[in-house]
Structures are given as C-alpha cells and as structure tokens.
C-alpha cells in the first residue's frame, strides 16, 4: 500500500478519534480499563460484558473506542498491582509479579512502574502502526475468500484457539463444540425453524451474548474468587522515584524492543493475545540475558519485556477481528458483540463501508496509549487506595452491576436468571479444568460458520468436496489438522506444558 494512503487514512482516523466526544469515551475506556486492570479478580472480558448494554446508547465509534480502551487500559493497570501487591491484577501480568514485586521490595517500585508504562506505550505505538499498515493488504486478501474458505478459516481459528488454551486440548475442543451448539440456539435464520428453544420465549432470538459472557466470566469469577480468598500484601502505599535511572533505561530498551516484537507476533495468532505474549517474552528475556540468575530477584528486563509484550499483543489481536471478522480471543469476541449491538457485521467490508469507524478506532488506540502514560503514573495513589476495598464488598458491587446491566439490556428479568445459570455452568467447567474462552469463541462463530457452510454448499451445487478442492480452503483445513497432530506429538506437548507452567 502506498504511504500517502496510509497517511490519508490515519488522518481520517485522527479526525474521528480527536472529536470531543470520542476523546471522552477513549478516556473513560482507558481509565475504566486501568481500574479493573488494577483490581485482581475483575477481568477485561467481564467488564466489557458489563458495559456492552451501556454502549447501546453511544454512537458506534464511541462505543468501540471505549471498549478497545478497556482492553489496553487493563494491560497498564495490571502491572501496577503486580508490582505493588505481588498479585496479578490481570492474568497477563502474572510474570510481572516475579521481578516487579522484587523491585518494589528493593524500593524501586517507581522505576518498575515507569518502565512498565514506557514499555507499554512504546509497544502500543508500534502495534497501532502495525495494524494501520497490515490491515488494508490483509483485507484485500480476505475479499477474495469464498464461503468455503471462510468456513475453513473459522475451523482453523477455532483449532488454533484450542491449541493455545491452557490445559487439555481435547477438553478445549469439547468447549468449542459446546459453544457452537449454544450459538445456534434460537430461530434458524435460513429456514425459520426453531432449534433448542424448549418453547421458552427469550430463547427464540437465540441466547443473548451479554448474559452468557457475564455469566461465564463475571459471575463465575466472583464464585471462584470467593472460594479462594487471596491475601494482599501492599508493599508500600507511597511510591517514590518514578523516574527510572539512565542505567534502567539502557537495560530495558532492548527488552522493550524484543517484547514488542514477540507480543505483536503472538497477538495476531488466534487464541494468543496478551497472556501468552507476556509469558513468551519473559522466557525470551531469561534466555538472552547474560546472567539469567538475576531474574526473579528484581531484573528490570523481566518487567520491561512482558509488559511491552502484553500491550503489543492486546493491540495486534485486533487485526484478525478487523480484517477477517474473526475474533481470536474472548476479548475480541466482546468487540464483535459490541459491533453487532450497533448492527455492524465484522469482516473485511467494515474498512470500506465504515472507514471513519475503522480508522477512528485505530487512531484512538494511539491516543489512548498517550493518555494512559500521562494519567496512569500520577494516579498510582488512587489505584492503591482502590486496592484497599476488600473483595468481599467488591464482589457484591460487581454482582449488582452485572444483574442490573443485563436487566437494562431488554428490561428482561429472565435474562438475569440466565446469568445465574451460566455463572453456575461456568463454575462447573472451571472445576472440571475446562476454559470458558473457547466456548465463547464457538458461541460467536457458530451462526456465522453455519451460514458460510450453507452458502458454500449452495454455490457448489451440493458438492461437499468444495471444502477440499478450493486451494485456500484446503490449506486452512490442512493447517488445522497439522496443528492438532502437532499437539498430540509428545515433544511439542512437553514444551507446551513447560510454557504454561510457572
């Protein structure tokens, strides 16, 4: 793509993102994201589910800008808790605890937080540019896809998500199928027949996305957290010396670069995203370090790398969603949910149909990152105060906001019952060591996949071999099978287990 196009597009994006109302929503998203990032036990998925009903009242640009802000804001906030309390505020900050908390105990909390923020900002800028550069060519590729190709691509996406999930691959596969099945509950759009509705009125239009997501993420998180109370040791409520020394900067700069690269690459992969990126980056930093024994004792690279990586990944994971319309993780499934509330079908046509929305969202990410680096550090004191609210009270507040949020969606008390049901279902699967994210992906992709499958069959005049005779579709399917085979081979399995340990 020509450079001038890039600048025209980004110019359009900034003109949208810099409007007063969109700046405001961007700020709200970034601050809410940071807040829930700081609080352990409240994740971005649950928060986005919580705010989905509210976005109904916003213009689509504002809604998506805010939702995006929650995700990358959470990456900034997660590091604050990791450094100060030795608890991951966000699951992508698990590794930041290792060295960040040690730095805080040595009185270098300020430096750790500053480096985390600087790394995140740098990674955010690079990833934003990457989206802007990579999206248009990818979209022109995606426009060549036929329905059969799409169907196979979704299979590949789901399989990759399964392979990347923690724990048992077979169980994750089962969860995907379960999600797909839940996704087709309701009226079959092609024939008008009802499926699995049990004559219950609210199921005729299908299970709503918000109660299911809120149940398996929000309510289930509360149940699981109350079952395992955590201890919070605040290392110190005063953070001094925010400025990192020249040596800190010199040490962390290469780590930030490497983290950004690792994170950007892993973010694009389906099922990847921020968590995997931070783990991979930490492992990489330990490998390239001259003295790996420093890690775990307050090595600044151990903060700089993973924190850059998780922010980069949080942003590049938008690429498959924006270009192909395929969510690669649970957060992107939420973004798709947000788009659908506004009647936007995600896919390659969004860029040409709604250029303002598309480029505005990308530009807002850069602006949001800029806001975060300025707001985040001075506000550390407020975040620390917020951590003082005990979870026993916080859990009740979250529960209330979940219930009233779902109720306000359609003024339907039945849907509040659904979140209780899905909360319970989520807890059962949590205890069975089955992850909920693959289920949510299946749930989003279920109806789309069925539609593409039918369209492919119609276009091929009933010939099912179309899935293997079209080169693109065939290669997606081969890749899916290869991935599955790869994972059952013992060697890969071993490294995967090591990667998910720690």
């Amino acid at each position, binding site marked *: 793509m020509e450079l001038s196009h890039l600048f025209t597009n980004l110019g359009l994006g900034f003109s949208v993102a810099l409007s007063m109302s969109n700046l405001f929503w961007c700020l709200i998203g970034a601050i809410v994201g940071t807040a829930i990032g700081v609080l352990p036990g409240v994740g971005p998925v649950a928060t986005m589910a919580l705010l989905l009903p509210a976005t109904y009242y916003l213009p689509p640009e504002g809604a998506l800008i805010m939702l995006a802000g929650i995700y990358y804001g959470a990456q900034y906030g997660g590091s604050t808790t990791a450094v100060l309390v030795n608890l991951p505020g966000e699951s992508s900050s698990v590794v930041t605890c290792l060295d960040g908390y040690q730095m805080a105990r040595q009185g270098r909390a300020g430096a750790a937080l500053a480096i985390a923020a600087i790394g995140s900002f740098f990674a955010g800028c690079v990833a934003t540019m990457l989206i802007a550069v990579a999206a248009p060519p990818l979209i022109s590729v995606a426009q060549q896809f036929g329905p059969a190709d799409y169907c196979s691509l979704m299979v590949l996406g789901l399989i990759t998500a399964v392979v990347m999930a923690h724990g048992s691959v077979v169980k994750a596969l*089962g969860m995907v199928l379960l999600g797909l099945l839940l996704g087709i509950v309701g009226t079959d759009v092609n024939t008008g027949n009802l499926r699995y509705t049990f004559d219950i009125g609210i199921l005729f239009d299908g299970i709503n996305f918000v109660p299911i997501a809120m149940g398996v993420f929000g309510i289930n998180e509360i149940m699981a957290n109350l079952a395992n109370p955590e201890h919070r040791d605040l290392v110190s409520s005063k953070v001094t010396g925010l400025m990192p020394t020249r040596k800190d900067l010199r040490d962390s700069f290469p780590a930030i670069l490497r983290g950004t690269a690792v994170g950007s690459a892993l973010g694009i992969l389906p099922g990847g995203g921020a968590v995997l990126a931070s783990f991979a980056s930490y492992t990489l930093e330990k490998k390239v370090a001259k003295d790996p024994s420093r890690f775990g004792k307050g090595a600044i690279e151990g903060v700089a790398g993973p924190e850059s990586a998780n922010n980069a990944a949080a942003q590049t994971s938008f690429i498959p969603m924006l270009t192909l319309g395929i969510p690669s993780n649970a957060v992107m499934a939420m973004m798709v949910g947000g788009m659908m509330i506004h009647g936007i079908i995600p896919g390659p046509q969004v860029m040409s149909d709604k250029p303002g929305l598309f480029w505005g969202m990308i530009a807002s990410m850069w602006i949001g990152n800029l806001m975060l680096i300025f707001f985040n550090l001075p506000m550390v004191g407020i975040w620390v105060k917020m951590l003082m609210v*005990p979870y026993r009270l916080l859990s009740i507040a979250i529960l*209330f906001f979940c219930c009233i949020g779902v109720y306000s969606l359609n*003024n339907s*008390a039945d849907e509040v019952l659904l979140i209780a049901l899905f909360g*319970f279902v989520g807890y059962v699967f949590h205890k*069975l060591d089955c992850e909920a994210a693959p289920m949510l992906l299946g749930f989003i992709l279920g109806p789309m996949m069925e539609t593409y499958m039918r369209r492919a069959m119609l276009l091929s005049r009933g010939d099912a071999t179309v899935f293997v005779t079209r080169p693109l579709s065939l290669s997606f399917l081969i890749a899916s099978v290869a991935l599955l085979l790869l994972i059952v081979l013992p060697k890969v399995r071993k490294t995967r287990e090591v990667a998910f340990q720690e």
Partner: protein
Amino acid sequence: MGQMPRPTGHADFIKGGQDVLCGLLFALVGTAGLWIGRDYPMGTSLRLGTGVFPRILCWGLIGIGGIVLVRGLLTHGPGLGHWAWRPVLLIGAAAVAFALLIEPAGLIAAMIALMVLGALAGTGHTLKEFATFAVIMLVMGWGIFIWGLGMPIKVFPWS
C-alpha cells in the same frame, strides 16, 4: 503406594474423577442435543436443512466426551477436588433473587436481597461495614439507574 492422593469417596476404578465427569457431561449434552433435534430436517445437500449443523456438533461432542471419559477411566488424573458450594449457590441465589424481585418489588428490595445473599457468600463481613456499604450502594444504585438513566423500574414495592 506411589499413587496420586485423591479425595475419598471415589470408586476404585475411577482414576481421574475430573475427566470422568467432564466426559460424561460432554457426551450427555451431545446425546440430548441429538435427541431433542431428532426431528430437525436434514434438507438436501444443495440446501442444508436445520438439522445438519447441530448433528455434526452433537456427534463431535459425543466423540470428545468419549475420549475424555476413557482417559479419565484409564489414566490417573486430578479428582473432583473441593467444590465451594456455599459461595456458588449463594451468589447464584443472589442473582436469582434480584431477577425475581426487580419487577414485582422494585429496585430497593431487589438490591437488599442481592446484597444480603451476596454478603452471606463471602466471609469476614462485619455488620457496621456491611451496613455502610449497603447504604452507599443503595444511594448509588438509585442515583445511577433511576435518577440518572431513568430506567423504568419502580423503586419501592408500593411506588
């Protein structure tokens, strides 16, 4: 004798209680899906009917469930572990109470029921702390959703 410790109450032939239950659950959902959807039309290969996609998924679930079940029966794995029924049931009950009360009894009653059940789910509450919290929440709930957003729900049972 070199065996993984597992909770008591297990039949001896079950080596991984978690996998056994999980496999059964998947297979059960798949079977139920097939049975409920037994009349969904298959259509033609040109125009796939309502029943095709669900059948593929249900057979897949049964297959996966079978694999997980067999694995649970043959190999040692984690047991079912400790289930925290108290928070699970009480948090669920809190949401259900809210759902049942919000329309007939109004916001305040629904919130109080939710908060009391929610508090019973956690530990370490003191009456003073909870009362303060509850009052703040009630004011906030009314302020945001009734006064601010103007949601069409009643506040008190008699209003």
